[in-house]
């Protein structure tokens, strides 16, 4: 298994000891830049972020790990009792948490559970297609790891396409599934948004959304199954 990312650097001695005793490979990082620079070729196995000493640094690191093309999961957060109240607003930033001071057995059990679940494959919050990645939790889209700046309806349309690849949809279907109501602009609205999306995807990826003559649109390549 690849090492687990641990923050801060150095981590609390108790955490280091627990991980070592549990036989986990781990590496401490001080910020997002180092997290990227030190990342193993196959990506971090997960992350344990201690937030009680430097809450701002910890949250900013979580955010940066979560908005990447390949969102880092699982992420276990170690928080102080005083921070519990704020957790509700940050739910997308972690997969589970542990209260400080932690009990080594609890931490190990949670970590084992998280890694097991993550090992079963991608989570529904992340949709990936080729170079394109959408984080449904944070509304963020990225192409080859570079954020894609979309308006709300552009995002909704791309999300629909990316979650239904290789199927052909008529403009009317897209209108009712994405806009969800009798939108006044009619099917022209779909064309206009597809053009905007293609412009933002750029020349190289504009053909992700293909026009199917006299029918509508299809996302992605047609693959022989």
């Amino acid at each position, binding site marked *: 298994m690849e090492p687990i990312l641990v923050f801060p650097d150095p981590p609390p001695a108790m955490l280091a000891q627990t991980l070592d005793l549990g036989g986990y490979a781990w590496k401490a990082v001080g910020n997002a830049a180092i997290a990227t620079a030190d990342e193993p070729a196959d990506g971090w196995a997960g992350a344990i972020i201690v937030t009680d000493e430097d809450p701002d640094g910890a949250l900013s690191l979580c955010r940066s790990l979560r908005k990447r093309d390949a969102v880092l999961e699982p992420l276990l957060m170690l928080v102080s009792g005083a921070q519990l109240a704020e957790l509700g607003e940050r739910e997308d930033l972690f997969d589970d948490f542990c209260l400080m001071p932690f009990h080594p057995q609890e931490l190990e059990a949670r970590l084992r559970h998280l890694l097991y679940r993550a090992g079963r494959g991608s989570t529904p919050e992340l949709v990936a297609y080729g170079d394109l990645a959408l984080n449904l939790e944070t*509304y963020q889209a990225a192409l080859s790891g570079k954020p894609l*700046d979309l*308006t*709300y309806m552009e995002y909704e349309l791309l999300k629909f396409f990316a979650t239904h690849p290789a199927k052909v949809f008529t403009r009317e279907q897209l209108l009712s599934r994405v806009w969800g109501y009798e939108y*006044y602009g*009619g099917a022209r609205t779909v064309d*206009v948004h597809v*053009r905007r999306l*293609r412009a933002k995807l750029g020349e190289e990826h504009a053909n992700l959304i293909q026009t199917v003559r006299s029918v509508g649109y299809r996302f992605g390549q047609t693959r022989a199954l």
Partner: protein
Amino acid sequence: MAPQLEYVLRTVEERGVRFVQLWFTDVLGSLKGFAITPAELEGALEEGMTFDGSAIEGYSRVQESDMLAMPDPATFEIVPWRGDDAPVARMFCDIQTLNGEPFGGDPRNVLRRNLDRAREHGYTFFVGPEIEYFYFRSATEPEPLDTAGFFDLTHTDTANELRRRTILTLEAMGIPVEYSFHENGPSQHEIDLRYTDALSMADNVMTFRMVVKRVASELGVHATFMPKPIAGAFGSGLHAHLSLFEGDVNAFHDSGDRQGLSKVGKHFVAGLLRHAPEITAITNQTVNSYKRLIAGYEAPTYISWARNNESALVRVPSPKRDKESSTRIEFRSPDPACNPYLAFAVMLAAGMKGVEEGYPLPEEATNNIFEMTAAARIDAGIDLLPQSLSEALDVMEKSELVVDALGEHVHDYFIRNKRREWNAYKEQVTSWELDRYLGSL
């Protein structure tokens, strides 16, 4: 909270946006705005931001100066030129009075009102503009960067780099570009935007002008939308391709017609032609605009329509075969210095008047009108567009159609402001007069 608002708030947090610019437009078509921090954003989206409108051209008088800017979350975009370090976003705003009424002096509201009126008849209004402009070495002298001509592929100059960066920036902001090329004049360029609904397009034109100028200034060049910067060269127009859709059906299309133009399309053209003089002050709002509307430079001067005649005021381009959605008409008089919200509003009002009243379409101008004698033109019933800003204001002032389309606030302010502009111009003694008269008289 509405998902659209949540999306905006979330994106600001996720992307670490530091400032959100709130954009709006004054009556004369200048882009205005102020920036707020993310902390203020939620309140701004829900309740609007108060600002002092007395400093904005054509907004309020001093005693009623406070207004509300209500950001339109559908227009939220990250501004690409600020980089990723401290991203900046922008939203267009609708302006309201403090008690929440749409403000009569806000051009975006003026256009919205006219679009709503067309909607009551079942129509959505689409616009695709071709925008021409010049690059000069500075803002003080119209010194071109090159002397290339129409469609010339130049590769040694910075103009290509300018256009390339401009297009990439536009596309990153969700403004798709259809064509771009070197125009007739020296250092003159044209960028055609893909058609979209008129409100988004007016927003796009405001963004477009900002992007073109900004990219140019980054490379030490001045971009200008002045309609006629060089005497004897082509001027810059904003040819507007217009269409009405009834649901998904192009209301201008009729495959049984020789021009492919439906009854609605013909009445719309007739409305534009009949009311063209009244709306010209809005589509061509500067003294300089009328130096472009002269014979010999492919700009319209006569009120006529044709299928393929570059001197006609309204052109009906041939639609692509089997593509009825591309049926449209092209209104050729506007210039890129116009206020796009007001210009689209009066074009729509003129065309819709023709549709509502069932105006008959005059005969197509078949031969080149410029070659006809004055008498032949009068016989053919072909009138001239207003010859100066002053003439255009005279016609506009009496136009019920324009008061109705713009509302009294904008109409009155516009006339007052532009009369002042004309009077200031009238006081000038030009170099042409000195050349012509000083020696001989």
